[in-house]
């Protein structure tokens, strides 16, 4: 909307009618556009940014990103900027730290660039998308083998408080690579409402593995105004889009924690008096989340790719809570972490059954990973789901009473968890190695139980 610039000629308005939470209601304003950016100066000279949410011929409802404390009805001054919220984008932003609105937070000057982009982006024409098919090897068996990540995918981590989601995300960022190419991923990291320690952990981990120069960070921490969280992931994705589609880079975007984002959204919705749907979240939570998650992918016009890995903590580990629920409907699968497994000392505690990668089917198999990969994965899932049933049976009748075949399944379950899923935080397994471990576990089971793998595959990998 830059074309309608300079409408206001630096005109300033004084005084606001109402201040209500993060919202400010202004009267007697003219020529204001929907979604326009506003600069609001508090009486003490503090300048904050805001955005128009609702506008009529002479009133405007503005949400203030910096919070409304110290604003007063009389002496507040506002200037409409004639464009919507934009951030500067440049390759040089890699290696830097910014706040949620793209302003430097590392004490260095703002990046030198003429490129400014609207943080909301534009919807990609589905016709212009390239279907993601390139296998990313994360070096983690439970992901590579069972829930494969593909370049251009959006694959969230569903976690809970106290679970090692940050360590897993850092491990992926450290180890992710394509099988046949040696391109480094550029990493764009967005943190909303997380504690300082968490941000610190990521900085340290990027530093240790020597990728920090390749990381752009957008931080809106727990003590920053909550409304800023609404923009943080969008700023990060705007830079990611520039790096991917304009500079041809392959970008991995890590966003943490989406639950905090949704809470900020709920706060605004409540302040506006909107009709809530589930658990007080607004009815448009799905569309709002989609407007971010859908910014992952590849374009057929070429260029790089955006792979998204949002992290969210499920309140009281409830996967049917609106945030994980709606996320799961939009993203292409989910990596679910399991508290019970973690307590048994399994790292990474990736829950076998509820985890899923929807793009896996096209990223693996012949010519991509190995011919038998799809079948092995399917067989492991089928067998592991039997293990779960048998375990619950065993808890009733006791392990001794189980039939011989069920005993074998119990043994398979143990081995699968301890050798395939479980691995070290710095252990980087090749896909060949992961497949070998998968077959090793399957060898515990008798041949006729393995219906999902083909006869030839059995001959090649089972009988040897």
């Amino acid at each position, binding site marked *: 909307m830059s074309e309608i610039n300079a409408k206001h000629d630096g005109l300033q308005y004084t005084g606001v009618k109402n201040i209500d939470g993060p919202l400010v209601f202004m009267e007697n304003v003219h020529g204001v556009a929907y979604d326009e950016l506003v600069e609001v100066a508090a009486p003490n000279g503090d300048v904050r940014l805001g955005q128009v949410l609702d506008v009529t011929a002479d009133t405007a409802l503005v949400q203030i990103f910096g919070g409304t404390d110290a604003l007063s009805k009389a002496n507040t001054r506002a200037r409409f900027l004639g464009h919507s919220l934009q951030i500067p984008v440049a390759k040089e932003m890699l290696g830097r730290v910014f706040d949620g609105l793209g302003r430097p937070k590392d004490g260095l000057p703002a990046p030198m660039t003429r490129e400014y982009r609207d943080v909301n982006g*534009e919807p990609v024409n589905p*016709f212009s998308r390239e279907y*993601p098919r390139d296998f990313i090897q994360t070096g983690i068996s439970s992901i590579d083998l069972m829930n494969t990540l593909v370049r*251009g995918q959006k694959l969230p981590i569903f976690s809970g408080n106290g679970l090692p989601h940050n360590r897993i995300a850092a491990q992926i960022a450290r180890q992710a690579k394509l099988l046949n190419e040696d391109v480094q991923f550029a990493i764009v990291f967005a943190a909303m409402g997380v504690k300082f320690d968490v941000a610190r952990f990521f900085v340290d981990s990027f530093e240790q593995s020597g990728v920090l120069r390749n990381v752009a960070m957008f931080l809106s921490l727990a003590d920053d105004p909550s409304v800023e969280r609404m923009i943080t992931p969008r700023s990060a994705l705007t830079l990611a889009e520039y790096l991917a589609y304009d500079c041809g880079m392959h970008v991995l975007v890590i966003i943490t924690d989406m639950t905090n984002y949704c809470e900020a959204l709920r706060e605004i919705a409540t302040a506006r008096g909107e009709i809530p749907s589930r658990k007080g979240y607004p*009815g*448009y939570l799905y569309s709002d989340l989609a407007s971010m998650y859908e910014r992952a992918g590849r374009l057929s016009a070429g260029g790089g790719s955006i792979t998204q890995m949002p992290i969210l903590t499920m309140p009281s580990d409830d996967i049917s809570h609106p945030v994980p629920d709606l996320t799961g*409907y939009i993203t292409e699968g989910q990596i679910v972490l399991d508290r019970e497994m973690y307590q048994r000392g399994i790292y990474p505690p990736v829950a076998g059954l509820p985890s899923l990668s929807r793009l896996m089917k096209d990223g693996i198999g012949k010519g991509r990973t190995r011919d038998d990969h799809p079948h092995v994965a399917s067989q492991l899932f089928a067998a592991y789901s039997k293990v779960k049933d048998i375990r619950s049976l065993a808890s009733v009748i006791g392990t001794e009473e189980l*039939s011989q075949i069920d005993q074998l399944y119990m043994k398979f379950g143990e081995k699968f968890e301890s050798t395939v899923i479980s691995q070290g935080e710095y252990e980087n397994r090749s896909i060949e190695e992961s497949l070998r471990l998968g077959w090793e576990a399957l060898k515990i089971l008798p041949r006729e139980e393995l*219906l999902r793998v083909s006869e030839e595959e059995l001959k090649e990998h089972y009988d040897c």
Partner: protein
Amino acid sequence: MDKGIIIRINGPIVEARQMEHTGVLEVVEVGNLRLIGEVIRVRGAVATIQVYEISSGLRPGEPVFCSGRPLSVCLGPGLLGKIYDGIQRPLSEIAKKGSSFIARGEKTPALDLDRKWSFKPIVKLGDVMEAGQVLGEVQETESVLHRVMIPPRHRGRITKLVPAGEYDGHDTLCELQDDATGATYSVGLFQYWPVRQPRPSQARLPLEAPLLTGLRVVDTFFPLAKGGAAAIPGGFGTGKTMTQQALAKWCEAKIIVYIGCGERGNEMTEVLREFPELVDPRTGRSLMERTILIANTSNMPVAAREVSIYTGITLAEYYRDMGYDVAVMADSTSRWAEALRELSGRLEEMPADEGFPAYLPNRLASFYERAGRVATLSGSEGTVSVIGAVSPPGGDFSEPVTQHTTRFIRCFWALDRDLANARHYPAISWRNSYSEYLPETAAWWRKSAMNWHDQREILMNVLQEETNLQRIAKLVGPDALPEGQRLTLFVAEIIKNAFLQQNSFDAIDMYCSPKKQLWMMALLATFITRSREIIKNGGTLAEIRGIKDLDRMNRMKSEIKNDDQAAMSSLEQRIFAELDAISNQHTNYGK
């Protein structure tokens, strides 16, 4: 042209004054960017407009241009193989203009007016034509003959008619004169129809034939009739889209309209990439030649999502009127309902259940009721079958969209989380699904001289018994059950692995012909009946488990080709021979 003035903007909802001449549902162009919108409410001189594009940057004071017509789609040859957004803008043509993103105010015509089509009239000068009657034919794709029809509300004697030849969208093909009123009409290749209004037909007919889909669990257990409506509810990750896509690929319809409504962009890309490469087993042509895609992904404007399902079903009705069987896949109707909820919230309407507007059931009904088998105006028969995916929050089927949907459909394919977790696809639960089309389809199968219904009963009974037995087995362990009940558990496992589960990536198993399905059903039914006899005569489960070719039977879905009669008979004979051997032992022993 009438003009109004914007007075308020709130997301996709815009209010404008000086609009006293506009009607509800009229199309307008909003602001200097001329964004497409539709009037949804008029109060005095103030009209409320829902805008189908992103409204960022609009200002009060900008103009609103009225068009005087309702939101309509353009109908004619060239629709097949295309991908449109919710308001029928051709996404492929827009992409060719250079940008990978959808710019606002984009106005590309839905159909290429300049493209020449080879038209052949089938009527002659002086014939009296009624609306809906066929004027002539165009070979739209190799497999689909497009019938050019007299548009609704047009009638009269043909006063002018072009000879067979090449014509484009600008040409008049014939002129009609209505002798009763004196009115004259000219008819071209293309016509328009308002999306929210069902296209007329002579009569609704009762449903008869099943819509065969090549999915065994559907065709055998929960069949959908041609002209029927079905819902696929399921939590995330249970395979709604996978099932929808499998149906779109293999179901026995002449035309497929696939509506991606508020879902992922990559899914549409997948369809676009995959369908042209797949071959329709019935025509031998590419599947894309019979498919129209409507894509309004979740990040595209929410108001256009609301209208996309009407756009899709109108296109379907148009092909139905040519006398074809059309299937509409809507993925997902929950996103459509959420669009309704969002717009309703912005209009500050009083909410009913979970914030959804009170008219939700009404709107759902008006969508699903457009499915049906009709006698068309031209005297032929056509059907529109509707399959709607439902995405209940938390996988809980008691929520409003699922609940209201079940009132208007007669076929319910419930997706099951546990099946999906075990990667048993399609994860259609045999416990919670139902089809009310069983009587109709059973009658149809009977005509093909097959005892489909009895065999279905045998398999279904085993599965039901198994559900009950599992409860006991969970307490005492399966080994504590008597031999006969353990047999039930054993054969239920075979039914699940060998029959219900279907691998949509397997070259053979992805599509199962009706013939092969019937054969598989018969083989399993016989196997079950005979095994039970053996157990009754004192045989053991171990003997039955020992049958050498069991493994082949378990793998028959992917090892035996759809038309490989020889392999079928051979496997059948080997299994029966082994069963014979076992049962002989026991009958002899008895003597």
